[in-house]
């Protein structure tokens, strides 16, 4: 094997190593950028949800030890406070605790009495309304025999013809 052949083989080997190193580097950079994009806080889905608050002020107020950094060749991005709070609120134990607290508060004596009083008042109100409507319907369907003001006026304007007894009394 000549010297030129050895040089050609060495150059080919160096080129292959360079290509492999370039490929590994590109892959590492892509992975790093993807991780940075994933850890970037997403915009809030609803502006009314306070748990999605991730305002720039809070991000700017983040201390230096919480900034993304590379530790032993790996990118470490500490979670933001909003992410910590959201995760804590999503744990089953915390959710159960929240539910039990709400139930206990709703079942307190004062709230219980208030709810019962509301129900009783609503029932009485509806019963009175229904009975009043029933009485009005009965009056509208069957007028009473008592002389009304209109009937009295009609009688005064047009007197009834005298009966036999009246004619016997007054000649």
């Amino acid at each position: 094997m000549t010297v030129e052949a050895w040089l050609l083989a060495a150059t080919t080997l160096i080129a292959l190593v360079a290509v492999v190193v370039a490929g590994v580097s590109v892959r590492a950079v892509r992975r790093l950028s993807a991780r940075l994009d994933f850890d970037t806080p997403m915009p809030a889905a609803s502006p009314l949800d306070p748990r999605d608050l991730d305002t720039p002020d809070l991000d700017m107020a983040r201390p230096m030890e919480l900034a993304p950094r590379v530790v032993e060749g790996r990118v470490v991005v500490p979670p933001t406070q909003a992410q910590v709070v959201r995760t804590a609120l999503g744990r089953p134990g915390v959710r159960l605790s929240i539910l039990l607290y709400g139930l206990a508060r709703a079942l307190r004596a004062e709230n219980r009495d208030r709810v019962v009083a509301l129900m009783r008042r609503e029932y009485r109100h509806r019963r009175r309304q229904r009975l009043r409507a029933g009485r009005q319907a009965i009056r509208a369907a069957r007028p009473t025999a008592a002389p009304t003001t209109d009937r009295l006026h009609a009688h005064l304007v047009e007197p009834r013809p005298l009966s036999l007894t009246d004619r016997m009394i007054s000649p």
Partner: protein
Amino acid sequence: MMGRAVWFAAGAAAGVYGSVKARRAAYRLSAPGIIDQAAALGVGWRAFSAEMRDGMQARTDDIVHRLDPAAAAAQLQLEDSLPRKREVTPG
């Protein structure tokens, strides 16, 4: 004479009381009475669930305040800017 009057008054009061109670029980067992009781139950359930929601929200605020006072302050500001919730009223 006095004893008879007392007994008469007691009997009349018992009769009035019993008739009112019987009329109310009869109304409660009728169809309109059952509808009214269901409506009252709905009002009670709404009030109960509203109170429970308030309690859950208070607990959530407490947890958020413990974990992150800055986020709690921002949440309080946001709640102040939102319209108030409606009160549950009968009728």
